[in-house]
């Protein structure tokens, strides 16, 4: 339980909601349909491969579920996902391969 008043909790919710929306709207809203410079676009092309791997890397290497201890089953499952996903160019095949690898290894160890 916390010591926050109802008003403080609502303030947190409202500011989080509005600020998160403004972050999400930022470039879509302000730049609209103007064209950004080529060098900016060249960087932005790499946004998904620059953010998502770094976002999940700690979850794979130091998982909460094991208290942060590196787990070979998760490492191998992540590797399988990448290799199969890359070869088949398919999210579903990659995720299926990774998920099955993880479940199988969890059963073994």
């Amino acid at each position, binding site marked *: 339980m916390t010591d926050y008043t109802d008003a403080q909790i609502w303030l*947190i919710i409202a500011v*989080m*909601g509005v600020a998160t929306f403004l*972050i*999400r709207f930022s470039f879509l809203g302000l730049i609209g349909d103007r064209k950004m410079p080529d060098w900016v676009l060249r960087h932005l092309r790499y946004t998904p491969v*620059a953010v998502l791997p770094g976002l999940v890397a700690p979850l*794979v290497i130091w998982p909460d*579920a094991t208290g942060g201890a590196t787990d070979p089953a998760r490492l191998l499952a992540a590797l399988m996902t990448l290799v199969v996903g890359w070869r088949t160019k398919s999210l579903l095949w*990659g995720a299926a391969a*990774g998920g099955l690898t993880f479940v199988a290894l969890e059963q073994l160890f």
Partner: protein
Amino acid sequence: MPSTTRNSAFRQGIVAGLPFLVVGGPFAALFGVIATQAGLDMAQALSMSFLVIAGAAQFTAIQLMNEAAPVWAVLAASLAVNLRMAMYSASLQPHLGAAPLWQRLVVAYLNVDASFALGIQEFEERPERPLGEKVAFFIGTMVLMAPLWVIGTLIGVLAGDSLPEGVSLDFAMPILFLGLVAPMLKRLAHLGAAVTSVVAALAFSGLPDGIGILFAAFLAMAAGAEIERRRG
């Protein structure tokens, strides 16, 4: 018939988003449970899920509220976690920036990790698609997820501790995002960016949540752009 093709783009978006429902539902329920434990009532927990729709930021806020952190600290930490979404916004701009304002408002509200990753992959694969179809696809990826996020929260609030323990569902999220990234690794520049991202994110893991990933992403984008510039 543009409206027919828009409908089919919308349906494609819905189908593309389906795998993420498996993760989103339980994740939202878990949020409902811990938000209740932290002292939020039902209206507050549901409002947060409806207004913020960002799992990591919501969990960060609740965690800090459990530690009785000052209000400004709760806000600073949870919003730092969401700063990466400014990059998503910039990355979507070349594809969706020309859409009418109301559509950009809807896209912005629904701009989360999964919709961004699904959307940008589709837009880069088929850049020639008309704008209306791109917007329809993007919204389609979230049309089930967004309500599920609130409904899942409600289930968590109602069920409380009686919710069954998840069977290692924590690992489903990384698997899905890795599965999304893998097909995007088309050239050396993509691979260079991804490897830089992983190494830098791990190196910066001591920084406050959300800040390390920002620095890592900047470095990784620079790496990708530089490799592209040199190799053409």
